[in-house]
Protein backbone atom coordinates (compact mmCIF):
# COMPACT_ATOMS: atom_id res chain seq x y z
CA UNK A 1 0.00 0.00 0.00
CA UNK A 2 1.39 3.42 -0.93
CA UNK A 3 1.56 6.18 1.65
CA UNK A 4 -1.19 8.20 -0.06
CA UNK A 5 -3.38 5.13 -0.24
CA UNK A 6 -2.74 4.40 3.45
CA UNK A 7 -3.74 7.94 4.43
CA UNK A 8 -6.85 7.61 2.31
CA UNK A 9 -7.73 4.33 4.01
CA UNK A 10 -7.23 5.91 7.45
CA UNK A 11 -9.57 8.78 6.53
CA UNK A 12 -12.11 6.30 5.20
CA UNK A 13 -12.02 4.35 8.45
CA UNK A 14 -12.39 7.51 10.52
CA UNK A 15 -15.31 8.68 8.38
CA UNK A 16 -16.95 5.25 8.67
CA UNK A 17 -16.63 5.40 12.47
CA UNK A 18 -18.22 8.86 12.59
CA UNK A 19 -21.04 7.79 10.27
CA UNK A 20 -21.77 4.72 12.37
CA UNK A 21 -21.93 6.80 15.52
CA UNK A 22 -24.06 9.60 14.08
CA UNK A 23 -26.19 8.34 11.20
CA UNK A 24 -28.63 6.27 13.24
CA UNK A 25 -29.10 9.03 15.81
CA UNK A 26 -29.70 11.58 13.07
CA UNK A 27 -32.21 9.43 11.20
CA UNK A 28 -34.00 8.56 14.44
CA UNK A 29 -34.15 12.21 15.50
CA UNK A 30 -35.44 13.36 12.14
CA UNK A 31 -38.06 10.61 11.94
CA UNK A 32 -39.34 11.72 15.31
CA UNK A 33 -39.42 15.34 14.15
CA UNK A 34 -40.77 14.88 10.63
CA UNK A 35 -42.90 11.80 11.24
CA UNK A 36 -41.67 10.53 7.88
CA UNK A 37 -39.20 7.67 7.84
CA UNK A 38 -38.55 7.82 4.11
CA UNK A 39 -37.76 11.53 4.01
CA UNK A 40 -35.68 11.50 7.20
CA UNK A 41 -33.55 8.64 5.96
CA UNK A 42 -33.10 10.29 2.56
CA UNK A 43 -31.96 13.59 4.09
CA UNK A 44 -29.38 11.93 6.29
CA UNK A 45 -28.06 9.93 3.36
CA UNK A 46 -27.67 13.21 1.42
CA UNK A 47 -25.79 14.73 4.35
CA UNK A 48 -23.50 11.68 4.46
CA UNK A 49 -22.84 12.00 0.74
CA UNK A 50 -21.89 15.67 1.21
CA UNK A 51 -19.45 14.58 3.89
CA UNK A 52 -18.00 11.88 1.64
CA UNK A 53 -17.38 14.56 -0.98
CA UNK A 54 -15.95 17.29 1.23
CA UNK A 55 -14.22 15.65 4.21
CA UNK A 56 -11.38 13.93 2.35
CA UNK A 57 -10.32 17.38 1.05
CA UNK A 58 -11.07 19.59 4.04
CA UNK A 59 -10.43 17.02 6.76
CA UNK A 60 -12.97 15.67 9.23
CA UNK A 61 -14.51 18.63 11.09
CA UNK A 62 -13.80 19.05 14.82
CA UNK A 63 -17.39 18.32 15.64
CA UNK A 64 -18.52 15.94 12.89
CA UNK A 65 -21.86 15.26 14.58
CA UNK A 66 -22.76 18.96 14.50
CA UNK A 67 -21.58 19.23 10.88
CA UNK A 68 -23.82 16.34 9.80
CA UNK A 69 -26.76 17.63 11.83
CA UNK A 70 -26.48 21.11 10.35
CA UNK A 71 -26.15 19.73 6.84
CA UNK A 72 -29.13 17.41 7.24
CA UNK A 73 -31.14 20.27 8.72
CA UNK A 74 -30.28 22.57 5.82
CA UNK A 75 -31.30 19.89 3.37
CA UNK A 76 -34.51 19.34 5.31
CA UNK A 77 -35.35 23.05 5.11
CA UNK A 78 -34.66 23.07 1.35
CA UNK A 79 -36.88 20.08 0.87
CA UNK A 80 -39.70 21.25 3.12
CA UNK A 81 -39.86 24.63 1.41
CA UNK A 82 -40.95 22.85 -1.72
CA UNK A 83 -43.80 21.08 0.02
CA UNK A 84 -46.66 22.99 1.59
CA UNK A 85 -47.67 20.00 3.72
CA UNK A 86 -44.63 20.63 5.87
CA UNK A 87 -45.08 24.38 6.39
CA UNK A 88 -45.61 24.08 10.13
CA UNK A 89 -42.63 21.81 10.57
CA UNK A 90 -40.54 24.23 8.56
CA UNK A 91 -41.21 27.06 10.97
CA UNK A 92 -40.19 24.82 13.85
CA UNK A 93 -37.12 23.54 12.07
CA UNK A 94 -35.89 26.99 11.07
CA UNK A 95 -36.46 28.37 14.57
CA UNK A 96 -35.35 25.54 16.79
CA UNK A 97 -31.72 24.84 17.60
CA UNK A 98 -31.03 21.22 16.63
CA UNK A 99 -33.94 18.85 16.39
CA UNK A 100 -31.87 15.90 15.36
CA UNK A 101 -30.37 14.83 18.65
CA UNK A 102 -32.16 11.74 19.84
CA UNK A 103 -32.28 9.52 22.85
CA UNK A 104 -30.51 6.20 22.44
CA UNK A 105 -33.71 4.20 22.45
CA UNK A 106 -34.76 6.01 19.28
CA UNK A 107 -32.10 4.00 17.48
CA UNK A 108 -33.72 0.89 18.87
CA UNK A 109 -36.95 1.84 17.11
CA UNK A 110 -34.97 2.41 13.97
CA UNK A 111 -33.40 -1.06 14.15
CA UNK A 112 -36.75 -2.76 14.72
CA UNK A 113 -38.29 -0.88 11.82
CA UNK A 114 -35.46 -1.72 9.42
CA UNK A 115 -35.64 -5.39 10.46
CA UNK A 116 -39.43 -5.66 10.38
CA UNK A 117 -40.49 -9.16 9.24
CA UNK A 118 -42.78 -7.59 6.61
CA UNK A 119 -39.62 -6.60 4.70
CA UNK A 120 -37.65 -9.09 2.61
CA UNK A 121 -34.43 -10.26 4.24
CA UNK A 122 -32.18 -8.55 1.69
CA UNK A 123 -34.10 -5.29 2.15
CA UNK A 124 -33.67 -5.57 5.94
CA UNK A 125 -29.92 -5.94 5.49
CA UNK A 126 -29.57 -2.99 3.12
CA UNK A 127 -31.83 -0.69 5.10
CA UNK A 128 -30.13 -1.44 8.42
CA UNK A 129 -26.71 -0.72 6.94
CA UNK A 130 -27.88 2.54 5.44
CA UNK A 131 -30.13 3.97 8.14
CA UNK A 132 -28.45 2.63 11.27
CA UNK A 133 -24.77 2.27 10.26
CA UNK A 134 -24.61 5.17 7.81
CA UNK A 135 -23.25 3.23 4.85
CA UNK A 136 -23.81 4.81 1.47
CA UNK A 137 -25.70 2.92 -1.21
CA UNK A 138 -22.44 2.56 -3.16
CA UNK A 139 -20.74 0.88 -0.20
CA UNK A 140 -23.66 -1.47 0.36
CA UNK A 141 -23.81 -2.41 -3.32
CA UNK A 142 -20.09 -3.16 -3.34
CA UNK A 143 -20.29 -5.21 -0.15
CA UNK A 144 -22.99 -7.42 -1.64
CA UNK A 145 -21.41 -7.46 -5.09
CA UNK A 146 -24.60 -5.92 -6.52
CA UNK A 147 -24.92 -3.02 -8.94
CA UNK A 148 -25.58 0.36 -7.42
CA UNK A 149 -28.81 0.75 -9.40
CA UNK A 150 -30.15 -2.57 -8.15
CA UNK A 151 -29.24 -1.71 -4.56
CA UNK A 152 -30.78 1.75 -4.79
CA UNK A 153 -33.97 0.20 -6.13
CA UNK A 154 -34.05 -2.35 -3.34
CA UNK A 155 -33.77 0.43 -0.76
CA UNK A 156 -36.41 2.61 -2.43
CA UNK A 157 -38.82 -0.33 -2.58
CA UNK A 158 -38.24 -1.20 1.07
CA UNK A 159 -38.83 2.37 2.20
CA UNK A 160 -41.94 2.61 0.07
CA UNK A 161 -43.27 -0.53 1.71
CA UNK A 162 -42.64 0.92 5.17
CA UNK A 163 -44.73 3.96 4.30
CA UNK A 164 -47.45 2.34 2.19
CA UNK A 165 -48.00 -0.77 4.30
CA UNK A 166 -47.96 1.22 7.54
CA UNK A 167 -45.00 -0.52 9.19
CA UNK A 168 -44.84 1.21 12.58
CA UNK A 169 -41.81 3.05 13.87
CA UNK A 170 -41.54 1.63 17.36
CA UNK A 171 -40.03 -0.95 19.64
CA UNK A 172 -42.37 -3.96 19.73
CA UNK A 173 -44.45 -4.58 22.82
CA UNK A 174 -43.12 -6.92 25.50
CA UNK A 175 -45.07 -9.97 24.26
CA UNK A 176 -43.81 -9.56 20.71
CA UNK A 177 -40.26 -8.64 21.62
CA UNK A 178 -38.73 -12.13 21.67
CA UNK A 179 -40.00 -13.00 18.20
CA UNK A 180 -39.07 -9.65 16.69
CA UNK A 181 -35.67 -9.69 18.35
CA UNK A 182 -35.01 -13.09 16.77
CA UNK A 183 -35.55 -11.42 13.39
CA UNK A 184 -33.13 -8.58 14.22
CA UNK A 185 -30.45 -11.00 15.45
CA UNK A 186 -30.81 -13.10 12.29
CA UNK A 187 -30.17 -9.96 10.20
CA UNK A 188 -27.10 -9.04 12.25
CA UNK A 189 -25.64 -12.55 12.12
CA UNK A 190 -26.21 -12.78 8.38
CA UNK A 191 -24.42 -9.44 7.94
CA UNK A 192 -21.57 -10.68 10.08
CA UNK A 193 -21.18 -13.87 8.08
CA UNK A 194 -21.40 -11.99 4.82
CA UNK A 195 -18.35 -10.00 5.91
CA UNK A 196 -16.55 -12.79 7.74
CA UNK A 197 -16.68 -15.31 4.91
CA UNK A 198 -15.92 -12.78 2.20
CA UNK A 199 -12.82 -11.39 3.92
CA UNK A 200 -9.54 -12.56 2.44
CA UNK A 201 -11.16 -12.52 -0.98
CA UNK A 202 -9.81 -10.63 -3.96
CA UNK A 203 -11.78 -7.44 -3.21
CA UNK A 204 -9.63 -5.08 -1.12
CA UNK A 205 -12.11 -2.21 -1.52
CA UNK A 206 -15.00 -4.16 -0.08
CA UNK A 207 -16.24 -2.90 3.21
CA UNK A 208 -15.82 -5.42 6.00
CA UNK A 209 -19.41 -5.99 7.04
CA UNK A 210 -18.40 -8.13 10.01
CA UNK A 211 -17.12 -4.98 11.74
CA UNK A 212 -20.44 -3.23 11.08
CA UNK A 213 -22.37 -6.24 12.36
CA UNK A 214 -20.27 -6.35 15.52
CA UNK A 215 -20.85 -2.65 16.03
CA UNK A 216 -24.60 -3.11 15.60
CA UNK A 217 -24.66 -6.04 18.04
CA UNK A 218 -22.78 -4.02 20.63
CA UNK A 219 -25.16 -1.08 20.15
CA UNK A 220 -28.09 -3.46 20.58
CA UNK A 221 -26.51 -5.01 23.69
CA UNK A 222 -26.25 -1.52 25.17
CA UNK A 223 -29.88 -0.74 24.35
CA UNK A 224 -31.25 -4.11 25.53
CA UNK A 225 -28.86 -5.16 28.32
CA UNK A 226 -31.33 -7.67 29.76
CA UNK A 227 -31.67 -9.74 26.58
CA UNK A 228 -29.29 -12.72 26.87
CA UNK A 229 -29.46 -13.69 23.19
CA UNK A 230 -28.15 -10.26 22.17
CA UNK A 231 -25.20 -10.75 24.54
CA UNK A 232 -24.75 -14.26 23.16
CA UNK A 233 -24.59 -13.05 19.58
CA UNK A 234 -22.16 -10.27 20.49
CA UNK A 235 -19.90 -12.77 22.28
CA UNK A 236 -20.10 -15.13 19.30
CA UNK A 237 -19.05 -12.39 16.88
CA UNK A 238 -16.21 -11.24 19.11
CA UNK A 239 -14.92 -14.79 19.47
CA UNK A 240 -14.85 -15.18 15.70
CA UNK A 241 -13.09 -11.82 15.30
CA UNK A 242 -10.54 -12.70 18.00
CA UNK A 243 -9.38 -15.58 15.81
CA UNK A 244 -9.95 -13.93 12.43
CA UNK A 245 -6.32 -13.09 11.74
CA UNK A 246 -5.20 -16.70 11.86
CA UNK A 247 -7.63 -17.97 9.25
CA UNK A 248 -5.49 -17.09 6.23
CA UNK A 249 -1.81 -17.34 5.45
CA UNK A 250 0.22 -14.59 3.80
CA UNK A 251 -0.89 -15.76 0.35
CA UNK A 252 -4.57 -15.64 1.33
CA UNK A 253 -4.86 -19.41 1.65
CA UNK A 254 -7.38 -20.76 4.15
CA UNK A 255 -5.93 -22.30 7.33
CA UNK A 256 -8.23 -24.72 9.15
CA UNK A 257 -8.72 -24.70 12.91
CA UNK A 258 -6.23 -27.49 13.82
CA UNK A 259 -3.42 -25.66 11.99
CA UNK A 260 -4.15 -22.11 13.09
CA UNK A 261 -1.54 -20.21 15.10
CA UNK A 262 -3.22 -19.97 18.50
CA UNK A 263 -0.62 -17.53 19.81
CA UNK A 264 -2.03 -14.90 17.43
CA UNK A 265 -5.51 -15.13 18.91
CA UNK A 266 -6.64 -12.12 20.89
CA UNK A 267 -6.70 -13.62 24.40
CA UNK A 268 -8.07 -10.48 26.00
CA UNK A 269 -11.02 -10.43 23.60
CA UNK A 270 -11.61 -14.13 24.21
CA UNK A 271 -11.68 -13.61 27.98
CA UNK A 272 -14.03 -10.63 27.60
CA UNK A 273 -16.36 -12.70 25.40
CA UNK A 274 -16.33 -15.39 28.10
CA UNK A 275 -17.52 -12.83 30.63
CA UNK A 276 -20.30 -11.73 28.26
CA UNK A 277 -21.44 -15.36 27.98
CA UNK A 278 -21.50 -15.66 31.78
CA UNK A 279 -23.51 -12.46 32.08
CA UNK A 280 -25.98 -13.81 29.52
CA UNK A 281 -26.22 -17.15 31.32
CA UNK A 282 -26.95 -15.30 34.55
CA UNK A 283 -30.16 -13.99 32.98
CA UNK A 284 -31.44 -17.56 32.92
CA UNK A 285 -32.83 -17.76 29.40
CA UNK A 286 -30.59 -19.94 27.24
CA UNK A 287 -30.87 -19.73 23.46
CA UNK A 288 -29.14 -20.64 20.21
CA UNK A 289 -26.70 -17.70 20.10
CA UNK A 290 -25.60 -18.23 23.69
CA UNK A 291 -24.99 -21.91 22.95
CA UNK A 292 -23.05 -21.17 19.76
CA UNK A 293 -20.99 -18.62 21.67
CA UNK A 294 -20.27 -21.18 24.39
CA UNK A 295 -19.08 -23.63 21.72
CA UNK A 296 -16.89 -20.99 20.09
CA UNK A 297 -15.48 -20.10 23.53
CA UNK A 298 -14.47 -23.72 24.18
CA UNK A 299 -12.59 -23.73 20.87
CA UNK A 300 -10.98 -20.38 21.61
CA UNK A 301 -9.93 -21.30 25.15
CA UNK A 302 -8.34 -24.64 24.27
CA UNK A 303 -4.54 -24.26 24.51
CA UNK A 304 -4.05 -26.70 21.62
CA UNK A 305 -6.37 -28.38 19.16
CA UNK A 306 -5.72 -31.74 20.83
CA UNK A 307 -6.80 -30.36 24.21
CA UNK A 308 -10.20 -29.19 22.95
CA UNK A 309 -13.03 -30.25 25.26
CA UNK A 310 -14.94 -32.27 22.65
CA UNK A 311 -17.20 -33.88 25.19
CA UNK A 312 -18.54 -30.51 26.32
CA UNK A 313 -18.77 -29.28 22.72
CA UNK A 314 -20.82 -32.30 21.62
CA UNK A 315 -23.06 -31.83 24.68
CA UNK A 316 -23.62 -28.16 23.76
CA UNK A 317 -24.43 -29.11 20.17
CA UNK A 318 -26.94 -31.65 21.44
CA UNK A 319 -28.58 -28.86 23.45
CA UNK A 320 -28.40 -26.52 20.45
CA UNK A 321 -30.29 -29.10 18.40
CA UNK A 322 -33.15 -28.84 20.88
CA UNK A 323 -33.33 -25.07 20.35
CA UNK A 324 -32.58 -25.17 16.64
CA UNK A 325 -33.32 -28.58 15.09
CA UNK A 326 -31.63 -27.90 11.74
CA UNK A 327 -29.57 -30.25 9.56
CA UNK A 328 -26.65 -27.77 9.59
CA UNK A 329 -26.47 -27.93 13.40
CA UNK A 330 -26.56 -31.71 13.18
CA UNK A 331 -23.71 -31.63 10.66
CA UNK A 332 -21.64 -29.42 12.97
CA UNK A 333 -22.35 -31.77 15.84
CA UNK A 334 -21.12 -34.66 13.72
CA UNK A 335 -17.86 -32.80 13.01
CA UNK A 336 -17.26 -32.54 16.77
CA UNK A 337 -18.35 -36.14 17.28
CA UNK A 338 -15.50 -37.28 15.04
CA UNK A 339 -13.04 -36.23 17.75
CA UNK A 340 -15.05 -37.82 20.54
CA UNK A 341 -16.31 -41.10 19.10
CA UNK A 342 -14.41 -41.46 15.86
CA UNK A 343 -15.01 -41.16 12.14
CA UNK A 344 -17.46 -44.01 11.82
CA UNK A 345 -19.94 -42.59 14.33
CA UNK A 346 -19.55 -39.13 12.78
CA UNK A 347 -20.09 -40.44 9.24
CA UNK A 348 -23.34 -42.13 10.24
CA UNK A 349 -24.57 -38.77 11.57
CA UNK A 350 -23.42 -36.92 8.45
CA UNK A 351 -25.12 -39.45 6.18
CA UNK A 352 -28.36 -38.93 8.10
CA UNK A 353 -28.51 -35.32 6.83
CA UNK A 354 -26.82 -35.92 3.45
CA UNK A 355 -30.03 -35.79 1.41
CA UNK A 356 -31.21 -32.55 3.04
CA UNK A 357 -27.84 -30.83 2.67
CA UNK A 358 -26.92 -32.18 -0.76
CA UNK A 359 -26.32 -28.68 -2.15
CA UNK A 360 -24.20 -27.53 0.84
CA UNK A 361 -20.47 -27.77 0.08
CA UNK A 362 -19.44 -28.29 3.71
CA UNK A 363 -21.50 -31.48 3.88
CA UNK A 364 -19.41 -32.98 1.08
CA UNK A 365 -16.11 -31.60 2.40
CA UNK A 366 -16.88 -33.10 5.83
CA UNK A 367 -17.84 -36.47 4.31
CA UNK A 368 -14.59 -36.44 2.34
CA UNK A 369 -12.57 -35.91 5.49
CA UNK A 370 -14.33 -38.72 7.37
CA UNK A 371 -14.01 -41.08 4.41
CA UNK A 372 -10.27 -40.38 4.31
CA UNK A 373 -10.08 -41.20 8.03
CA UNK A 374 -11.73 -44.51 7.20
CA UNK A 375 -9.32 -45.12 4.29
CA UNK A 376 -12.06 -44.98 1.67
CA UNK A 377 -10.01 -42.82 -0.70
CA UNK A 378 -12.12 -43.19 -3.83
CA UNK A 379 -15.33 -42.07 -2.14
CA UNK A 380 -13.44 -39.26 -0.39
CA UNK A 381 -12.30 -37.95 -3.75
CA UNK A 382 -15.83 -37.97 -5.17
CA UNK A 383 -17.04 -36.05 -2.12
CA UNK A 384 -14.24 -33.44 -2.39
CA UNK A 385 -15.11 -32.96 -6.06
CA UNK A 386 -18.75 -32.40 -5.15
CA UNK A 387 -17.70 -29.81 -2.54
CA UNK A 388 -15.50 -28.01 -5.07
CA UNK A 389 -18.38 -27.73 -7.52
CA UNK A 390 -20.61 -26.19 -4.85
CA UNK A 391 -18.45 -23.44 -3.30
CA UNK A 392 -17.93 -19.99 -4.83
CA UNK A 393 -15.40 -18.88 -2.21
CA UNK A 394 -11.92 -18.69 -3.79
CA UNK A 395 -10.05 -19.61 -0.57
CA UNK A 396 -12.19 -22.69 -0.07
CA UNK A 397 -11.80 -23.64 -3.72
CA UNK A 398 -8.02 -23.47 -3.41
CA UNK A 399 -8.03 -25.68 -0.32
CA UNK A 400 -10.22 -28.32 -1.97
CA UNK A 401 -8.09 -28.30 -5.13
CA UNK A 402 -5.00 -28.86 -2.99
CA UNK A 403 -6.69 -31.81 -1.29
CA UNK A 404 -7.57 -33.36 -4.62
CA UNK A 405 -3.89 -33.09 -5.65
CA UNK A 406 -2.54 -34.68 -2.45
Amino acid sequence: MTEARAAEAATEAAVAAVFREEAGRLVAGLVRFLGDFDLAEELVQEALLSAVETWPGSGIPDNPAAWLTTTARRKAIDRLRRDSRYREKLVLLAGSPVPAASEPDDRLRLIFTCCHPALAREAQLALTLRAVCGLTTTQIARAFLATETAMAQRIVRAKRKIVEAGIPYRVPAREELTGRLREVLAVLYLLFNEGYLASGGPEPDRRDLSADAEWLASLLAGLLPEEPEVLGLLALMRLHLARAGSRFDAEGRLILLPDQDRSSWDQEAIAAAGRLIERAAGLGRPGPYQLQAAIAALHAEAPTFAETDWEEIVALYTLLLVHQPSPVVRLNRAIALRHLEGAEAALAEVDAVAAELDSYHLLHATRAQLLRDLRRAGEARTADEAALRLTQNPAEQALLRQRLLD
Partner: protein
Amino acid sequence: MKYILLFCGSDERWDTIPEAERNATYEQIGAWWGKGTAAGKIVGGEELQPARTATTVRFQGAETVVTDGPFIEAKESVGGYALVDVADLDEALELAKGWPARGVVEVRPLVEHSGGM
Protein backbone atom coordinates in the same frame (compact mmCIF):
# COMPACT_ATOMS: atom_id res chain seq x y z
CA MET B 1 -55.04 2.71 8.42
CA LYS B 2 -57.35 0.39 6.57
CA TYR B 3 -56.25 -3.09 5.56
CA ILE B 4 -57.93 -6.03 3.97
CA LEU B 5 -57.21 -9.50 5.31
CA LEU B 6 -57.61 -12.05 2.53
CA PHE B 7 -58.26 -15.50 3.98
CA CYS B 8 -56.91 -18.19 1.72
CA GLY B 9 -57.10 -21.92 1.98
CA SER B 10 -57.86 -25.10 0.17
CA ASP B 11 -61.54 -25.56 -0.77
CA GLU B 12 -60.94 -29.25 -1.03
CA ARG B 13 -59.75 -29.47 2.54
CA TRP B 14 -62.62 -27.32 3.76
CA ASP B 15 -65.11 -29.57 1.91
CA THR B 16 -63.69 -32.80 3.27
CA ILE B 17 -63.04 -32.08 6.95
CA PRO B 18 -65.52 -33.66 9.38
CA GLU B 19 -68.61 -31.58 9.93
CA ALA B 20 -67.96 -31.24 13.65
CA GLU B 21 -64.56 -29.72 12.96
CA ARG B 22 -66.02 -27.33 10.38
CA ASN B 23 -68.71 -26.22 12.79
CA ALA B 24 -66.17 -25.72 15.55
CA THR B 25 -64.09 -23.54 13.21
CA TYR B 26 -67.15 -21.50 12.23
CA GLU B 27 -67.82 -20.95 15.88
CA GLN B 28 -64.26 -19.75 16.48
CA ILE B 29 -64.47 -17.46 13.46
CA GLY B 30 -67.70 -16.05 14.87
CA ALA B 31 -65.99 -15.31 18.18
CA TRP B 32 -62.92 -13.79 16.45
CA TRP B 33 -65.16 -11.63 14.29
CA GLY B 34 -67.32 -10.54 17.20
CA LYS B 35 -64.33 -9.55 19.30
CA GLY B 36 -62.70 -7.61 16.46
CA THR B 37 -65.95 -5.83 15.63
CA ALA B 38 -66.64 -4.92 19.25
CA ALA B 39 -63.13 -3.46 19.47
CA GLY B 40 -63.90 -1.34 16.41
CA LYS B 41 -61.12 -2.98 14.42
CA ILE B 42 -63.12 -5.12 12.00
CA VAL B 43 -65.34 -2.86 9.92
CA GLY B 44 -66.53 -5.26 7.23
CA GLY B 45 -66.02 -8.54 5.45
CA GLU B 46 -67.67 -11.57 3.90
CA GLU B 47 -67.18 -15.26 3.31
CA LEU B 48 -66.95 -16.28 -0.35
CA GLN B 49 -68.45 -19.32 -2.06
CA PRO B 50 -65.76 -21.85 -3.05
CA ALA B 51 -63.46 -21.16 -6.00
CA ARG B 52 -65.36 -23.73 -8.10
CA THR B 53 -68.21 -21.21 -8.31
CA ALA B 54 -65.95 -18.50 -9.76
CA THR B 55 -66.27 -17.15 -13.27
CA THR B 56 -63.54 -15.04 -14.84
CA VAL B 57 -63.93 -12.30 -17.44
CA ARG B 58 -60.83 -11.47 -19.45
CA PHE B 59 -60.35 -8.52 -21.77
CA GLN B 60 -58.52 -9.47 -24.91
CA GLY B 61 -58.33 -6.58 -27.32
CA ALA B 62 -61.90 -5.62 -28.19
CA GLU B 63 -63.24 -8.96 -27.01
CA THR B 64 -64.23 -10.18 -23.61
CA VAL B 65 -63.75 -13.84 -22.86
CA VAL B 66 -65.71 -15.51 -20.08
CA THR B 67 -64.26 -18.66 -18.58
CA ASP B 68 -65.06 -21.01 -15.76
CA GLY B 69 -62.90 -20.87 -12.65
CA PRO B 70 -60.80 -18.37 -10.70
CA PHE B 71 -58.30 -16.15 -12.50
CA ILE B 72 -55.36 -18.14 -11.21
CA GLU B 73 -55.61 -21.89 -10.92
CA ALA B 74 -54.03 -22.72 -7.59
CA LYS B 75 -54.49 -25.18 -4.78
CA GLU B 76 -55.31 -22.36 -2.42
CA SER B 77 -57.76 -19.59 -3.15
CA VAL B 78 -59.38 -16.66 -1.39
CA GLY B 79 -62.24 -17.87 0.75
CA GLY B 80 -63.18 -14.64 2.42
CA TYR B 81 -62.00 -11.26 3.58
CA ALA B 82 -62.20 -8.85 6.48
CA LEU B 83 -61.83 -5.13 6.24
CA VAL B 84 -60.00 -3.78 9.27
CA ASP B 85 -59.29 -0.28 10.50
CA VAL B 86 -56.27 -0.21 12.82
CA ALA B 87 -53.29 1.93 13.79
CA ASP B 88 -50.59 0.21 11.77
CA LEU B 89 -49.38 -2.99 10.10
CA ASP B 90 -48.41 -4.62 13.41
CA GLU B 91 -52.00 -4.38 14.64
CA ALA B 92 -53.31 -5.80 11.35
CA LEU B 93 -50.79 -8.66 11.57
CA GLU B 94 -51.86 -9.35 15.14
CA LEU B 95 -55.47 -9.80 13.97
CA ALA B 96 -54.33 -12.00 11.08
CA LYS B 97 -52.31 -14.21 13.41
CA GLY B 98 -55.47 -14.85 15.44
CA TRP B 99 -57.47 -16.05 12.39
CA PRO B 100 -58.99 -19.35 13.57
CA ALA B 101 -59.29 -21.17 10.20
CA ARG B 102 -55.48 -21.01 9.70
CA GLY B 103 -54.29 -21.59 6.11
CA VAL B 104 -52.81 -18.36 4.69
CA VAL B 105 -53.78 -14.76 5.33
CA GLU B 106 -52.61 -11.98 3.02
CA VAL B 107 -52.62 -8.53 4.58
CA ARG B 108 -52.89 -5.60 2.17
CA PRO B 109 -53.24 -1.90 2.93
CA LEU B 110 -56.02 -0.08 1.09
CA VAL B 111 -55.36 2.96 -1.04
CA GLU B 112 -56.63 5.95 0.88
CA HIS B 113 -58.09 8.34 -1.66
CA SER B 114 -57.78 11.89 -0.48
CA GLY B 115 -61.12 13.69 -0.12
CA GLY B 116 -62.76 10.53 1.13
CA MET B 117 -64.86 8.02 -0.70
